[in-house]
């Protein structure tokens, strides 16, 4: 660790509770943009929102898989502040951070849990260019009255197809959180995509 390590939460209890609340809201109102507070300055590559979620959720019992492009400073920072071990394989991960770069594993590579323990699955944080301004997609399912339209930008090719496959396994499957800057959108496994596959 040659670079001086950036600080984590200033008030770990309050800030992690706040971030947890936002995540809870994001996952129970899929598609709604939640803006996280706080003033984290994680190492370059990691969004403040992704950083806050991991400081809140990850610990020594939750192996973390990081997209190779994120680099050593991000890994060092997360290991220091969360004590989470780095997963060597996506299949070992409980949390993952993807950047959308080509060649990153698909959602199906991460644990989906099993019918008896669907909770033994991964939560995938997918960092993207923005949560608005992309191609619109219509969502439905628990937490959405009628339907909701979102238009995140800069998602990897084939993402919606992967998500549709993932969510078809319900109650198994990963939960996805889109993160851009300090904002997130929750895409839990209970979600249904209303936009026709061909249009995605």
């Amino acid at each position, binding site marked *: 660790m040659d670079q*001086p*390590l950036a*600080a984590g939460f200033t008030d*770990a209890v309050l800030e992690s509770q706040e971030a947890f609340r936002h995540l809870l809201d994001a996952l129970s109102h899929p598609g709604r943009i939640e803006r996280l507070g706080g003033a984290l300055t994680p190492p370059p590559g990691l969004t403040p929102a992704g950083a806050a979620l991991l400081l809140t959720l990850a610990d020594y019992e939750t192996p973390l898989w990081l997209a190779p492009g994120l680099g050593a400073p991000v890994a060092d920072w997360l290991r*220091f502040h969360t004590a989470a071990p780095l997963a060597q394989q996506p299949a070992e991960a409980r949390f993952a951070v993807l950047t959308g770069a080509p060649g990153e594993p698909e959602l199906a590579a991460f644990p989906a849990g099993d019918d008896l323990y669907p909770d033994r699955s991964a939560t995938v944080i997918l960092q993207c260019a923005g949560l608005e301004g992309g191609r619109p997609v219509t969502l439905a399912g628990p937490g959405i009255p009628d339907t909701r339209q979102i238009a995140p930008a800069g998602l990897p090719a084939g993402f919606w197809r992967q998500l549709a496959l993932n969510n078809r396994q319900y109650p198994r499957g990963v939960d996805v959180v889109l993160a851009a800057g300090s904002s997130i959108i929750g895409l839990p496994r209970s979600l249904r995509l209303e936009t026709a596959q061909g249009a995605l």
Partner: protein
Amino acid sequence: MTTGATSTTPRQRWMAILARASAAELDDMLPRGARPAFTTLKPAETGTVMVQARAGGTGDRFNLGEATTTRCVVRLESGTMGFSYALGTDRAKAESAAIIDALMQDAPDQLAPAIARLGKAQQAARDLASRKAAATKVDFFTLVRGE
């Protein structure tokens, strides 16, 4: 000299000594007024460590129970990070020990003698406890039996 099974590097040895010291002993070693400037990376925090043991002493691992543990991580202006992890709930001690750990990496000459003295005192206390136990060692003698 060491107490742990795998405490071998000099840093592990001084961390082991600091873990067994009291907050007052560490304040004596590095008075609060004489502390270098530092940034707190992980504020002193009390949590637990789950203590593992082995069945029969050598077999499969099992969880015996937890132990309160307090940790602290600081960084000096030089960029050196100091860590402390010790049993108990003493947060003031944790911060002092973390600063001393960082100083020992930067300039070992300054505090090494004081740490050595502390280590010696700890060893002397262990030695005395062992000698008191040794006084309760049984000397068996066999009575001669007539044939």
